[in-house]
């Protein structure tokens, strides 16, 4: 026979058990609610941050295409995009990267690049570009808002219906996602943005060289457009893509940069010393001109070439197989008699040699660009640049089609005033006249200076020459 009080005791235990479980469940529910909500917030915040990475990657994608467009054809710039950007023409690109986000979510990057007319620099005609990008990341988990309304105000997530419709972009939809929109403006960077750039070794030798800058456009930074030590500026930056600068006890009024390398023999640097430098120089392609001035086809002895008042005209363009002068011979590039600006472009497919006491003479007002595919050896009396403006004599080394080493040797007993861009050439600057002063900028595969005591970089060069890169000058997040 079973006794009834046994059943009552069981009921009491059951009651206690249920009570304790109920209390623990309340705690567990509260903990779960708090934790899951915050976990959700964490995931949403992560997606929001990843969307920024996506949007910034879009800027990178646009800049990559712009840089590709600087290379000699065929450069395949804008392949896969719907347009080449222009004024009123938006180039649109869309990239999806699978498994890029937390939880294996795909990253969507949408880029629009255009070239508004307002962004043309009137001083040199250079076009700045506007890049507008959208980065978006899907939200994982249930589409619910955060505990705190302030989080919703900050991140502006799309949970059920697309929160903001921007007609510029097409990839957003109603699916839960975080998105960020950026606008960046990039400006062209000149090949002559530094006083000296070497792809490999930069050797200034042991001449206690002083490197500084002036700005021939600014009376506060020059006198009558010429270097004035009293108005010395501190933008004489030197850099190498390699890992060694042998500065030879140099005094650099500017920054010194290597690619994870070292600088030896620097007595003083007014700027900063960096080791994170790398700038891929854009190679120079053979000039492609629809028509040229056919005569002469070569220069071998004294000669006169005539510049034209019209920049880029056929009469101002010459294709020469070589320039070779020696003894007391001269190559005169004649400008307008009144000294007004005139232009000439030479493409020398062979070597350039100035020897003995020979000299290349630029006429008053002449602005010369000399492209060359062979070696350049300028000695003798060098090149007479009468206005002493580096912008007036730009030397470009065309990318060789073979592996034979090329060199540029720039010297002579006259003052050297020029800008050299020859990233595939070993460049040597010798002397610089009786006082060893050189005015301009030098870019070479290797750069060595011998007998040069002063290098004065003209900051005006940064707005001339070929475009070598694009840099961001404005960055705004559109937070609508």
């Amino acid at each position: 026979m079973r006794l009834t009080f046994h059943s009552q005791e069981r009921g009491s235990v059951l009651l206690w058990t249920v009570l304790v479980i109920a209390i623990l469940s309340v705690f567990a529910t509260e903990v779960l609610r708090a934790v899951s909500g915050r976990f959700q917030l964490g995931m949403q915040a992560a997606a929001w941050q990843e969307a920024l990475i996506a949007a910034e990657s879009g800027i990178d994608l646009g800049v990559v295409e712009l840089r590709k467009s600087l290379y000699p054809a065929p450069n395949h710039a804008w392949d896969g995009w719907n347009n080449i950007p222009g004024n009123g023409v938006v180039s649109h690109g869309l990239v999806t990267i699978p498994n890029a986000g937390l939880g294996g979510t795909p990253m969507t990057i949408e880029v629009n690049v255009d070239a508004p007319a307002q962004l043309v620099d009137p001083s040199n005609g250079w076009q700045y570009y506007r890049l507008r990008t959208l980065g978006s990341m899907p939200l994982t988990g249930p589409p619910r808002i955060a505990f705190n309304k302030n989080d919703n105000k900050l991140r502006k997530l799309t949970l059920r219906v697309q929160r903001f419709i921007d007609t510029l972009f097409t990839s957003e939809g109603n699916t839960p996602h975080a998105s960020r929109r950026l606008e960046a403006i990039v400006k062209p960077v000149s090949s002559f943005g530094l006083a000296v750039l070497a792809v490999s070794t930069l050797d200034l030798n042991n001449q206690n060289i002083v490197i500084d800058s002036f700005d021939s456009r600014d009376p506060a930074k020059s006198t009558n457009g010429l270097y004035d030590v009293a108005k010395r500026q501190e933008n004489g930056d030197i850099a190498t893509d390699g890992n060694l600068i042998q500065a030879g006890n140099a005094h650099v009024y500017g920054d010194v940069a290597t690619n994870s390398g070292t600088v030896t023999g620097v007595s003083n640097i007014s700027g900063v010393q960096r080791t994170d430098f790398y700038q891929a120089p854009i190679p120079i392609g053979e000039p492609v001109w629809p028509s040229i001035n056919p005569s002469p086809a070569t220069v071998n002895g004294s000669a006169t070439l005539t510049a034209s008042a019209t920049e880029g005209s056929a009469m101002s363009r010459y294709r020469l197989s070589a320039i070779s002068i020696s003894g007391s011979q001269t190559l005169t590039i004649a400008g307008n008699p009144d000294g007004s600006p005139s232009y000439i472009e030479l493409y020398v497919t062979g070597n350039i040699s100035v020897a003995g006491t020979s000299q290349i003479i630029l006429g008053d007002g002449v602005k010369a660009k000399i492209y060359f595919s062979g070696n350049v050896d300028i000695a003798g009396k060098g090149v007479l640049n009468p206005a002493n403006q580096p912008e007036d004599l730009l030397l470009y080394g065309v990318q060789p089609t073979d592996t034979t080493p090329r060199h540029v040797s720039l010297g002579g007993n006259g003052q050297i005033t020029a800008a050299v861009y020859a990233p595939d050439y070993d460049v040597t600057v010798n002397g610089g006249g009786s006082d060893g002063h050189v005015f301009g900028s030098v870019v070479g595969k290797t750069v060595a200076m011998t007998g040069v005591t002063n290098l004065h970089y003209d900051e005006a060069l940064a707005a001339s020459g070929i475009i070598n890169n694009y840099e961001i000058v404005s960055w705004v997040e559109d937070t609508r």
Partner: protein
Amino acid sequence: MMQLPRHPSTGFLLYETMIAMAIFSAISLGLMMGFTSLERNLAATTSFATNHTDAMRISDYLALDLRRALSVQSTQNDTRVTIPDYYDANGDPRTPQLDGEGGVYYGSNGSSVQVRYYLFNGTIYRRQNLGTPVAIAENVSDFVFTVTDLGKVVTTKITFKPRFRSSGASQAVIDGTAVYNTTLLRNGSTGG
């Protein structure tokens, strides 16, 4: 004298009742203390998590404006950031213009929008120009946020007082709550 038979269900003796009450009290007290401790712990943890979430939000807000900053000025719990004047009166983005010095501007040359972050009456506000302040974190009187200008980057540090001890938090514990953020100034310049 004849003894009456006892039935088990007729009741408890005094000492049995007292022992049962003592055991019940001890168990109840233990449970109550446990639950109270749990509750306090839950409250402190929730508070910590809430504060941490607030700190992250403040950090994200600051970083949002610092990335596009033209200049930054800061003292403890008071940071002023100027950003480009990107939107027109209708709230639409403006077309940029060249400034003639290698840069661009929105609106008129030299114009900008000032954004101020400050702590007032236990609330951290974000205020744009002279507009209505927007609360970005509430009940944060114990928060301290500092923005340090390091040139091309700025760092933000946000701390609060956790409530795990009734005696309060030591400075070391407060420092342990710090949320740091280092932001690259995309527009390059700092300083007022």
